[in-house]
């Protein structure tokens, strides 16, 4: 890639920092050139986030329909799968699968809820009520 062809399409990252690309100057020598972003990868990231937003919305619906506990919602919201959540909380995967059932979740003691709340970085009250504050 030639230096003058390094794309400068402002991305959400570009507002915070430009990134280094390696590109060639007029003599063909590689130099570091800063890029504000590239539309192709902005779109790729958008595709990924649209998918995540869809998953969060579906999880929310399942919780409201009492098919799943709020854990499902927060797992999608925090981009966690059962294995990551298991690592953060110390619960076994099969325990988490049980806690994903609304009836089991509703009877969880405060101590266990606290572990989930910490993993998701929310309060216990917010965890129960599926409330999020942008951070």
């Amino acid at each position: 890639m030639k230096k003058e062809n390094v794309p400068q399409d402002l991305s959400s990252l570009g507002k915070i920092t430009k990134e280094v690309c390696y590109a060639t100057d007029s003599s063909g020598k590689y130099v570091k050139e800063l890029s504000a972003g590239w539309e192709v990868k902005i779109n790729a990231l958008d595709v990924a986030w649209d998918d995540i937003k869809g998953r969060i919305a579906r999880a929310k619906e399942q919780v409201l329909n009492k098919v799943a506990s709020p854990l499902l919602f927060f797992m999608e919201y925090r981009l966690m799968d059962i294995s990551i959540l298991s690592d953060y909380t110390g619960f076994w995967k099969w325990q988490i699968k049980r806690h994903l059932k609304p009836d089991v979740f509703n009877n969880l003691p405060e101590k266990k809820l606290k572990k989930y709340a910490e993993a998701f970085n929310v309060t216990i009250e917010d965890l129960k009520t599926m409330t999020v504050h942008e951070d």
Partner: protein
Amino acid sequence: MKIDFQHVQSAHCESGVTSSLLRKNSGNKITEPLAFGIGAGLFFVYVPLIKINNGPAIAFRTFPGLIFKRTCEALGIPVIRKKFSSKEQAEAFLVERLNEGTPVGCQVGVYYLSYFPKEYRFHFNAHNLIVYGKEEDNFLISDPVMENATMLTTYELERVRFAKGALAPRGQLYYPQNDGAITDEQIKKAIIKGIKKNVHMMLQIPGWFAGVAGIKHTGKKIKMWRDKLGLHKAGLYLAQLVRMQEEIGTGGGGFRYIYAAFLQEADAYLPNNGLLEISNIFTQSGDLWRTAAVQAAGIYKGRISSQADFNIMGDYLIEIAELEKNAFKALKGIKWQ
């Protein structure tokens, strides 16, 4: 305390950290491309069974930690690397090093990395940064992918050093032991070693999932994605491919441009080995990866969607595989002067 340390922005976190931590020993000679090449950083691997963010695991670079390890090894520099089970010990050890005046590399997770924009925060645990001081409750951070040096509070740093999930850093930190200057002779030997290692990684790993064979295999698979996965999921998979290839940290073109830059710099140390010509092939390859990314974007944006479009996409990868095979074969065949 604050160590006399100059923040330098680089394309890729680990080769950037390696270059910066070796700056004192090398007198600025181990640039990012040299660290990347000596560390045999270039790779390709496609593992459909492992899912990352609901897509297949694809990587254009070698496994985390190896670039620093191999570069130091090849240069004959001893390395200290430590993991911790206790957060308190992890912090105490770090602070001791800072008090001694040693900047320290840390492996961290990016999900809770506060200075990253939210859109970029995934559960990716193999990011690298340098801690070079502490002022009150703030650690001074040189994150190689950022334009400027930054800071993290004690709690924020602890959180990212003890991120959980795949490749959990477990407080991991590392630094080279300062042992005098690095000579040009050492650098020459290390370059040859790094190139040989990279040839092995790209040409000689058995199986269809890694190296040049992995690129070709992925190209063939992509042609089947439309029927097998449906347009929506195929689009998600292609978007994942493009992100791994082009996102911040790659230097563009799936790290191929950094590697081309490495070969140019290597040529200055080892002229008359034809490295400049081979560097040009990697530039072509990087350009072709980017052309493929534009095609992929057409698909995931829904602008194009026919089987012919998927075939073109797959053929790009097959062409790239051929190109890189020739480049690595040429590297393999060098009779070093």
